């Protein structure tokens, strides 16, 4: 973790917030250096900005982790399901039965109750994909894979590659992030579900009828001046709420974890080394408990994201008349 670096240096209380922030945000953006500097991406960025589009194509740490998570998600699910299908005895192994349990739960309790018996098959792949992607990225944020590479790096400080600042290993060894704690990532996910629930309505009722369905019919006409703007705002608030909920939950948990650990350093700086040692067990116990809570939150938030997408799709399909 980032905090570990600073043990030897002077620590003051007001640094804690900065470390918590550094842990959560895209830290190699702060250093103004990307992990993978491909020339083609730089030129793409320049061309886009010349065209008037402020898009950064560069692969920062979060983008790299996003690729990593996608790779792991697709790899795990496809391998497990393929091996299960091609297996002769048809007995699911441990992980396969876990995935099967989640899929069955999602189908029975989420898809069939919210979207409906008839249409749920059309939208099932989307909901499953969202669920597993969010679940894997939440859980991978909790497994300190890259912190381990940092530990190896700190042991192998003699090697030249770890000394040089801002190369791939250096940046990665500053700890992995939860990609879903980045608000841009969750915004992209919410955009997908936004288009999904607009598409669901259009697919069922046709283009014009879907937009008419947004406001309930049969009201006295002056009321429409109030109802239509509210419904229109609600349309955009839904993905916004999805975005903020997931990012906020993940970010909040990680900030709290870092703050609990910084109690040790704060006590050490303010009250002396003995106080630091005394507070360490409590601090670590708190952080451990919070990590357990975060495991629970990781699953719940993935479920919530999938559930809300399903609910919104269901609302677009089953319009109250």
């Amino acid at each position, binding site marked *: 973790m980032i905090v570990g670096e600073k043990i030897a240096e002077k620590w003051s209380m007001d640094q804690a917030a900065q470390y918590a922030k550094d842990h959560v945000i895209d830290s190699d953006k702060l250093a103004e250096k990307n992990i993978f500097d491909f020339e083609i991406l730089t030129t793409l960025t320049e061309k886009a900005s010349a065209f008037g589009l402020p898009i950064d194509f560069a692969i920062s740490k979060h983008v790299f982790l996003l690729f990593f998570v996608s790779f792991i998600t697709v790899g795990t699910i496809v391998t497990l399901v393929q091996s299960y299908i091609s297996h002769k005895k048809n007995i699911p192994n441990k992980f396969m039965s876990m995935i099967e349990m989640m899929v069955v739960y999602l189908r029975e309790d989420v898809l069939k109750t919210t979207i409906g018996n008839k249409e749920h098959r059309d939208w099932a792949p989307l909901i499953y994909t969202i669920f597993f992607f969010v679940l894997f990225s939440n859980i991978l944020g909790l497994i300190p894979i890259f912190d381990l590479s940092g530990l190896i790096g700190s042991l192998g400080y003699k090697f030249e590659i770890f000394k040089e600042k801002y190369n791939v290993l250096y940046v990665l060894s500053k700890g992995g992030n939860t990609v879903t704690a980045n608000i841009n990532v969750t915004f992209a996910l919410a955009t997908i579900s936004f288009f999904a629930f607009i598409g669901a309505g259009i697919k069922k009722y046709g283009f014009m009828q879907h937009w008419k369905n947004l406001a309930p019919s049969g009201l006295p006409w002056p009321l429409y001046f109030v109802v239509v703007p509210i419904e229109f705002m609600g349309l955009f608030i839904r993905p916004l709420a999805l975005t903020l*909920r997931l990012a906020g939950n993940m970010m909040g948990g990680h900030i709290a974890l870092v703050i609990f650990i910084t109690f040790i350093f704060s006590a050490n700086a303010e009250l002396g080394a003995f106080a630091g040692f005394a507070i360490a067990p409590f601090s670590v116990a708190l952080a451990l408990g919070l990590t357990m809570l975060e495991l629970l939150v990781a699953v719940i938030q993935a479920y919530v994201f999938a559930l809300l997408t399903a609910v919104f799709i269901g609302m677009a399909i089953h319009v109250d008349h």
Partner: protein
Amino acid sequence: MGAGLAVIGAGIGIGLIGYGVAQAIARQPEAAGEIRSQTFLLAILVEGAAILLGLLSLVLG
């Protein structure tokens, strides 16, 4: 300050939901599964507002 207020609001909301759920399950134990999935949805909506406020207080403060 803002985070504290957000927590108070969400605490009251989720507490009320929990109260309702406990009563509903006690009255109709056979409908527990259905009630639970409805609970999740309501709790999420309450929590969403709280998180929005918490984030705002984090950004502004």
